[in-house]
């Protein structure tokens, strides 16, 4: 059974490091991203990858309550996406209203 645990351990560590590299790539995407949508999508996928990392860590460190953290992240990234999209569409609609008023004048 001994070699099984460190086999699992190396598997988990390798996976976590790959996902960490992916997170850094997502960060660069969110910095470069020309449009607001890229930024929201990048943060959303950083959130999902954090969920996966914490899930793997919780199985690796044998602590069941870390899975609550993953569930919280799922909720938080969902609420953040809703708020951001509502805000951006609201801002865009106001801009259009201003332009239409300017054209009427």
């Amino acid at each position: 059974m001994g070699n099984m645990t460190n086999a699992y351990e190396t598997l988990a560590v390798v996976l976590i490091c790959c996902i960490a590299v992916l997170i850094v790539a997502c960060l660069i995407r969110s910095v470069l991203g020309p449009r607001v949508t890229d930024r929201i999508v990048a943060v959303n996928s950083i959130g999902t990858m954090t969920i996966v990392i914490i899930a793997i860590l919780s199985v690796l460190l044998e602590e069941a309550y870390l899975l609550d953290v993953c569930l919280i992240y799922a909720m938080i990234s969902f609420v953040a996406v809703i708020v951001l999209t509502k805000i951006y569409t609201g801002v865009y609609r106001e801009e259009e209203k201003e332009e239409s008023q300017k054209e009427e004048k």
Partner: protein
Amino acid sequence: MEMFRFMIAAIFMFCGVFCMASAVFGMFRFRYVLNRMHTAATADTFGLLLTMIGLIIWKGFGFEALKMIIIVGFFWVSGPVSSHLIARMEVSTNKKLEEECEVKKYGEL
């Protein structure tokens, strides 16, 4: 038996991480915003499912497995809704949408 189970779990988790890597690769590769958003959303949800299945196989059945299923269930309900919201925001605010993809006005469907 133990080695067999480890192999299956490893395969599932590697596929999951591969999906995520393809999502990130897709985000950099595609030219139009909607394509980038599409790859990120689908691959994320699928990658999450595969990794979670791998973890469940690794951990065996118990409370952790139940929690992971709840997480996947929650994500499979909220993921598409958030992608829908982002896509609708993109469509309604992108002025130069025509040359990115042909858009049928509501009337012409």
